[in-house]
């Protein structure tokens, strides 16, 4: 990271073009990450809606054996 600035340049315009006065467009990589995040959130939400739950317990034993009762859980 030695060649990376610790802070942005004083006049960092990033996606704002020279002389642009309107707000910059959302970068494509941000939109792509947003879509991926939305798909993951919907996938987890669907598990709850379908009653599958979510978490380590849902994965169970490798061969489908019941998960042992853990004290206090």
């Amino acid at each position, binding site marked *: 990271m030695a060649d990376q600035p*610790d*802070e942005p340049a004083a006049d960092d315009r990033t996606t704002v073009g020279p002389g642009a006065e309107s*707000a910059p467009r959302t970068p494509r*990589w941000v939109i792509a990450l947003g879509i991926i995040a939305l798909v993951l959130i919907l996938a987890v939400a669907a598990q709850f809606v379908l009653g599958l739950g979510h*978490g*380590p317990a849902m994965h169970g034993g490798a061969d489908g*054996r019941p998960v*042992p009762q*853990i004290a206090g859980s």
Partner: protein
Amino acid sequence: MAARRPIMPPALRKLALAIHLTTSVGWLGAVAGYLALDVTVSTSGDPTVLRGAWVAMGLIASWVVVPLAAASVLTGLVMALGTKWGLFRHWWVLISFLLTVGATGVLLSETRVISDSASLAADSSTTTDQLLALPSTLPHSVGGLVVLLAVQVLNIYKPQGLTPYGWRKLQEERTRRDVM
């Protein structure tokens, strides 16, 4: 005029950056080590190996991964708020922070289950069938590692892009400079 945020002096900023890098990369390394054990408990049928791996996973999660995650979030906040980058001005900073907080949240929710499984594995009365049936944390370990790698990439490449808030602040600063 809006109050200006305090900016860290260069020496302090370097120190904060060093601590942030150490904790963040340390977190990534700790998760990689945890993942090796997680793959072992998912593939091994040897009860001795399973017991040892689960106990080690419990210790690594509680004493290494969680403290490093908390330190990474805190130092990340300090770096964002104590420098001109800000927390909400640049997409890469904001997204890195959200991913880090999300990963920490999932980690904290998993730690209890991991600790309980480690306790069960350490109990000599636990049978081999019970050991084999302990819930796997592998999907979350792999997912966590992918998220942390994504955060590292964002922090190294610092892809350009101002948020609407960052753009407004930039305009305000330019206006202030033009007036002076």
